[in-house]
């Protein structure tokens, strides 16, 4: 029996019983796949410019470190079409020290005020009627500099003869950095230590020790969509549309910058055309907001590719590490000195130094560790977050060490790792008990995929063959906050409001699958609203692979709250206890009394109106135990771990140094794959990006200046760099608190790629390369050095 509705209108029957649901675990397509293929979805830069928009051109510093004596703007102002020229000093007159922003340290002025700290820093902005005029006029600005001693790299910085910043300025964002305020005479803005046992004594007693100094260069994200920001003032409110992964953060930053309430700032987003970490925290937004606020004009800043290279990078990092084993082959000690080059601004480098430094020893059972991880200022482009958040750099070190240690002991690199890898319930060196970090299955699966125990081809005298394996371990960003609001529409569809930004990872699609699973709805009937701080609730950031777990949990909770609310409607209507009701694909059912009502009917009956909505809101906040100040240990340093592995079979051309990838297998433990297709794309996408970092992709600096900041010079993996065979493996070791057991995956397989390749090169031709990338020239140099033992490896 189906309940007869009280009104005479026919029930909405659009939700057919046979519709597929596309819930959790299903390979649903992106809802906007056709729009992405035909190019009809609108990204930020596709939005039209209203008449009166002022386009911004930026004049950039030509000095790496200099006091700004004078900025001559007259010639730029004289250019036809120029509306205004604004210098850092002009903005400082209005904003004062609030001009300095940044997530960890308030050290980034949106226009340099008194001194410039890198070649390419923004010095002055031109507002003009069209972008070409703005850029041309920016070239007419002349700046007088008084040069200061430059700090080109971490060695210069640690010598402490010249300082990038006179004193440290922790921002108000992270309370734990407050004690660094006002510290002078250093380029080290943060240091993390991890001390477990007595590593020095264990090294001393050990039977075997290997030591290596590794270098991972700065690299750039190069999403194909260029950054773009528009800002305008609407009745005293500052509104922006921007390419950002962090709308909630930007809202707070702009509110602080302009000293106006949060409610007077609105940040809107569109889907991002890729980001990988470069469109977050303070990029173009503070400058756009300051210009719109101070001039009253609607402004638009479109970065060119050359500009984009100057906005942020991945940290170059040098790691000096040692790993020791006792006579039985147990790992007794790891020591690691990690130095991250953060460039002119700390950005989120201090967090990287700590949260990536904490995994510097690797995911192994180790008796004693001593980690020193530092974030260091230099006069170069600022480094910030980039897929992997500093962990690829330390993985490059610990996987190099354990590979060499295995070889030193005459053991198989796979089986040696396997014996020592952390297992469920083990305590990681940082002090946290492991859960749902299935390194063993990951390493077993990738080695099985490449046929680890199959014989390696003989080679032909020119091409030599080898195999390599590595693992990667990363903590998810913790603690963070996620909120979700859900509107169930009277027609049985739903609208989900979250501030997670879809930048290609497919979050809009999987979040609707979670709602669909809980409410037994076809997930294609659930629309996800793009982050807009006027409408969508606070979310810490979309980064660090945290959204599936954090926002996913908020979304699961909000859908469960909706289910309970709808059951309550039916219970009230039918006069039965809500506990006796269930929600299935046809709606709410009371089995015993044979009562049934579709969601559409229930909402209609409750409100007596078509088009009504029912709203629920929920929060999910993760927690941690802050690490001990002296030892860096914590019993819960993170909400969950990422575990991944890569195995590769490759051939090295010993005539030219070229590397050919025959088979790359990668695996990531995702807890539970909410959408296996999207998970596989993240696994392979991260791995191929990792191939670029391994073989050729790097930013080259000459006296602080980037020399390859165009896409003609900066090499990225093309379709021709695909391995001959590529095998992604999804490992599902459910997390007890994840939404349906799920956790994120976006960074997992970028971590182990470089060391797996270097291990394979070592296997193929006997040379251990510790400097990335593994360019043909570098391979040849090592081969030549190996042939001539008198020379050291380069």
């Amino acid at each position, binding site marked *: 029996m189906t309940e007869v509705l009280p009104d005479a209108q026919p029930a909405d029957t659009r939700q057919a019983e046979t519709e597929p649901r596309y819930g959790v675990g299903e390979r649903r397509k992106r809802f906007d796949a056709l729009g992405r293929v*035909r*190019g*009809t979805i*609108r990204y930020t830069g596709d939005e039209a410019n209203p008449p009166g928009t002022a386009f911004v051109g930026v004049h950039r510093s030509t000095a790496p470190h200099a006091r700004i004596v004078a900025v001559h703007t007259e010639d730029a102002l004289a250019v036809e079409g120029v509306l205004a020229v604004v210098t850092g000093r002009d903005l400082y007159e209005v904003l004062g020290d609030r001009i300095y922003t940044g997530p960890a340290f308030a050290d980034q002025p949106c226009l340099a005020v008194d001194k410039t700290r890198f070649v390419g820093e923004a010095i002055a902005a031109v507002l003009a009627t069209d972008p070409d005029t703005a850029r041309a006029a920016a070239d007419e600005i002349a700046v007088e500099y008084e040069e200061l001693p430059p700090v080109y790299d971490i060695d210069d910085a640690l010598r402490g003869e010249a300082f990038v910043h006179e004193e440290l300025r922790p921002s108000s964002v992270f309370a734990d950095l407050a004690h660094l305020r006002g510290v002078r005479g250093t380029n080290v803005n943060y240091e993390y230590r991890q001390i477990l046992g007595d590593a020095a004594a264990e090294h001393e007693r050990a039977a075997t020790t290997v030591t290596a100094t590794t270098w991972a260069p700065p690299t750039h*994200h190069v999403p*194909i969509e260029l950054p773009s920001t528009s800002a305008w003032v609407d009745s005293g409110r500052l509104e922006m549309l921007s390419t950002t992964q962090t709308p909630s953060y930007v809202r707070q930053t702009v509110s602080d910058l302009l000293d106006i309430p949060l409610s007077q700032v609105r940040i809107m987003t569109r889907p991002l055309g*890729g980001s990988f970490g470069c469109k977050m925290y303070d990029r173009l937004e503070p400058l756009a907001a300051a210009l719109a606020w101070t001039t009253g004009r609607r402004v638009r800043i479109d970065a060119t590719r050359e500009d984009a290279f100057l906005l942020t990078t991945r940290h170059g990092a040098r790691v000096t590490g040692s790993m020791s084993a006792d006579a039985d082959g147990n790992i007794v000690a790891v020591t690691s000195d990690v130095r991250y080059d953060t460039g002119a601004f700390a950005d989120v480098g201090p967090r990287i130094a700590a949260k990536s430094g904490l995994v510097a020893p690797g995911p192994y059972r180790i008796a004693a560790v001593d980690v020193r991880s530092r974030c260091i200022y230099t006069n170069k482009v600022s480094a910030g977050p980039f897929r992997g958040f500093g962990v690829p750099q330390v993985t490059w070190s610990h996987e190099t060490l354990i590979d060499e240690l295995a070889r030193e002991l005459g053991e198989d690199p796979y089986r040696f790792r396997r014996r020592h890898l952390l297992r469920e319930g083990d305590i990681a060196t940082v002090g946290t008990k492991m859960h749902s970090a299935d390194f063993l299955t990951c390493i077993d699966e990738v080695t099985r995929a490449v046929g680890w125990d199959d014989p390696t081809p003989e080679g032909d005298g020119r091409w030599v063959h080898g195999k390599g394996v590595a693992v990667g371990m990363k903590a998810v960003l913790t603690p963070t906050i996620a909120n979700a609001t859900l509107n169930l529409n009277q027609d049985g569809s739903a609208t989900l409001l979250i501030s997670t930004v879809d930048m290609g990872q497919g979050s809009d699609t999987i979040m609707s699958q979670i709602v669909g699973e809980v409410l037994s709805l076809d997930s294609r009937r659930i629309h996800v609203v793009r982050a807009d701080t006027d409408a969508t609730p606070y979310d810490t950031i979309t980064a660090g692979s945290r959204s599936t777990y954090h926002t996913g949990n908020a979304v699961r909770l909000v859908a469960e709250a909706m289910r309970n609310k709808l059951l309550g409607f039916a219970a009230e209507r039918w006069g039965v206890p809500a506990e006796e009701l269930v929600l299935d694909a046809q709606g709410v059912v009371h089995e015993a009394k044979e009562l049934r009502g579709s969601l559409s009917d229930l909402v209609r009956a409750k409100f007596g109106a078509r088009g009504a909505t029912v709203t629920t809101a929920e929060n999910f906040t993760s927690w941690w135990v802050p690490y001990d100040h002296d030892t860096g240990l914590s019993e819960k340093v993170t909400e969950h771990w990422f575990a991944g592995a890569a195995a590769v079979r490759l051939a090295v051309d010993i005539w030219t140094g070229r590397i050919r990838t025959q088979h790359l297998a990668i695996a990531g433990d995702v807890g539970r794959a909410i959408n296996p297709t999207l998970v596989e794309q993240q696994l392979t996408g991260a791995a191929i990006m990792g191939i670029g970092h391994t073989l050729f992709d790097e930013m080259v600096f000459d006296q602080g200046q980037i020399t390859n900041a165009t896409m003609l010079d900066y090499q990225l993996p093309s379709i*021709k760099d695909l391995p001959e065979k590529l095998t992604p493996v999804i490992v599902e070791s459910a997390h007890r608190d994840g939404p349906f057991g799920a956790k994120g995956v976006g960074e997992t397989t970028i971590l182990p790629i470089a060391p797996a390749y270097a291990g394979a090169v070592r296997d193929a031709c006997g040379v251990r390369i510790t400097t990335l990338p593994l360019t043909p020239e570098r391979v040849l140099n090592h081969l030549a050095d190996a042939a001539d033992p008198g020379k050291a490896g380069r």
Partner: protein
Amino acid sequence: MNEITLDVNGTPYKVAVEDTTLLLDALRRRVGVTSAREGCGVGACGACTVLAEGRSVSSCLAVAVRYDGTPLTTADGLPEDDPVVSSFVDSDAMQCGYCIPGFVLMTKELLSENRSPSDEEISDHLEGNICRCATYPEIIKAVRLAAKRSAT
């Protein structure tokens, strides 16, 4: 200023351009095309690809006046049931999607010249387009599928 006619997906648009106006800027700012995009400004990424009389052009390097009256195709002008479009959709050949229209048009060009390309011919033809999400395995699948669909 020159008044030229940009013939985009069969519709003529009269637009005023300078001698130096780039085809990409004319298409985006004057015609309202969203599927051709600037990614590098130096012809190295393929995001700005359009077809001129069926041949691929990096519109970030081309001046608009040269294309006065030339039939131009942009990805948003392709129908939903175009075999290349449907093959990209069915192969999940997109992540962020920003570069994908360029790959779609390169595939149109490839299949017009070679109805059943080998995998090597596919990657040779698409090598100049960069997908930073590295959707390459799915793109190759999509091109193979499009070749099959175009043949029938």
